[in-house]
């Protein structure tokens, strides 16, 4: 792919500079099962990259290898020039990689705002003595964090900010997950099936949101998605996994016509 691409709104996006994420030879083996096999993967700067594949292809496992929830069996993951291979999840997040979950993992009994405030955890500097004494610094930081949380909820379009996460409708829970991930001020955002359970209008809204994140906040986005309409519309680059292996990659056009991809999704014509 070239140094620049044009997004849906006609803006040119500049991908020059070293890639945000560079994963080489990543494998994950569970006992005898090879869930991810020797995958090379690059996320160029300010790009939206999609990872697709049939169910059980190893997409989420690969995500977990990138974000520190799994220790990859082999391979290296370089993020912004730093080796984050097999680093703990909180260290990866603090470094600037944030994620959402396929099966929504909100803190159910906290309010939407509190959920986002937890997302800010690695960016807050309060110490325990400061919290107990409630020093002016802590007071200011807490106030700023709350305001920022509300801004982020506005940004993703969630209105019921003081509602408990568990009482929010499904679409809002997905939005809240994204707001919470954004709270850690990531350079790279990993979205695991963000449009699952959303209607067409909501999916379109999410697509615009991703575009804004890229153009306004210079964020790169890695997306796992089953909704091909979303994937084809939003991605600069698509990687296809099947049985843990990378079977194709390229622009949406190239991937759409790749016979291997068609076979993986529809079965061979034997």
């Amino acid at each position: 792919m070239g140094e620049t691409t044009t997004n849906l709104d006609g803006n040119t996006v500049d991908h020059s500079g070293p890639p945000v994420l560079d994963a080489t030879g990543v494998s994950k083996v569970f006992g005898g099962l090879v869930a991810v096999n020797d995958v090379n993967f690059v996320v160029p700067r300010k790009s939206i990259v999609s990872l697709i594949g049939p169910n059980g292809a190893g997409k989420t496992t690969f995500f977990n290898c990138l974000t520190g929830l799994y220790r990859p069996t082999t391979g290296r993951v370089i993020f912004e020039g730093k080796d984050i291979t097999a680093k703990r999840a909180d260290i990866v997040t603090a470094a600037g990689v944030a994620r959402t979950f396929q099966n929504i993992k909100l803190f159910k009994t906290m309010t939407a705002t509190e959920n986002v405030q937890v997302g800010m955890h690695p960016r807050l500097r309060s110490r325990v003595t400061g919290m107990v004494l409630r020093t002016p610094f802590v007071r200011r930081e807490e106030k700023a964090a709350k305001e920022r949380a509300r801004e982020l909820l506005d940004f993703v379009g969630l209105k019921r900010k003081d509602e408990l996460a568990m009482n929010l409708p499904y679409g809002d829970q997905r939005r809240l997950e994204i707001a919470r991930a954004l709270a850690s001020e990531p350079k790279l955002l990993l979205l695991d099936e963000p449009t699952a359970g959303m209607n067409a209008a909501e999916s379109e809204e999410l697509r615009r949101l991703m575009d804004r994140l890229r153009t306004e906040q210079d964020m790169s986005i890695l997306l796992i998605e089953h909704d091909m309409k979303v994937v084809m519309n939003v991605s600069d680059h698509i990687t296809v996994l099947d049985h843990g292996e990378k079977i194709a990659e390229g622009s949406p056009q190239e991937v759409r016509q790749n016979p291997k991809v068609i076979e993986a999704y529809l079965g061979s014509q034997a």
Partner: protein
Amino acid sequence: MSSMLATARTRFDSLTATLPPPLWMLGGLILAILFPYIAGTGSLLDASIQTLAYVIMALGLNIVVGFAGLLDLGYVAFYAIGAFVIGWFGSQQFPDINGGKGIHILSSDRATFQLKLNGTHAEIPGIHINFFIVIFIAMAITAVWGILLGAPTLRLRGDYLAIVTLAFGEIVPRIFENSTSGLFGIGTTDFSNGRQGITPVDTINLPWSKDLVYSDLNLKPAYWVALGMVVFTIFVNRRLRDSRLGRAWIAVREDEVAAASMGVNLVRTKLWAYAIGAAFGGFAGAFLGSYNNTVNVDQFEFGFSVFVLSMIIIGGMGNIWGVIVGAVALSMLNRYGLPELNQLPIGFDPTSVSYGVFGFFLLIMMVLRPEGLLPSGRRKLELHEGETEGEDAAVVGDMSQMYEVRQ
């Protein structure tokens, strides 16, 4: 019974809703300060003082169990450590120290000099540090032990965590019991007097005064000291609950994988919970050591851990006010509801029926009101989740088994 409690709860809610929090807290505090004038100076006041110490311990354990969700069945270990700290720093346990003249820091007349037979004064041997300094030393030492005992358990959850903490609660008192010739096998000093325990223990004097603040005939000042310690504990608890750390605790309790993925350091967050929770155990333990005038390993039984845990469960896990209600209720029940156990120093004997009684109350609570008398909003939602969420809940199933959360 359930509906009665529900009504009481609604009344309490509307009461707390109409008054701004500082007002009803202030009202409660004034009532608590004036309470000794109602209670007189007899057994009720003594029971109230013990109760206040239990309130501190329940609030400390609530940080570990209620906030961070780490089931700890060995909390008595921190009571023991705190009590022994005042036993060492406020008694004649180390008679040879400083050439037999002892060390005295802001201590009272009684702890400083004794009248010898020939009419002259001599310094009392042993370490005698002012109570108000020792309670904070006890906090610091128990906090460190909270971390040391918490660290090996970090990978465990649920039942396994409970079993390991239970073992720690058993081991710590046994170590003290056997420390008659050196601690951890180091040295030859007697640290505990074995089963006899350390007695007498210094009582309380203000740092700028040589007079004791209370006597057996007038326990009121002891009550106020304990009340001050409770207020301090509530203050710290509330501040922490509404902080970055408090949010991290609840996040860890709800979903470790998500918490770690949001940048919460699981190890540090859990260890803070253990340390701060333990610190309050030591805080109250040092007070009880002084107030009971003895530090004896017989006080540190497994039943005490269950006693404090029951206070939290019955009161309402995670809710500071609920925990206080639970602590007062159980402590008073223990004192007056089970009068046949009155003669025992802390009211517990492993073979006695008190276990059965508390077990029965726990069971009743689990059936009628699993969230406790005054539950935290969060906890109540968690326990009644299935009733409100219905079928949608299945869609967002728990897949935490999928991740290997590394700490």
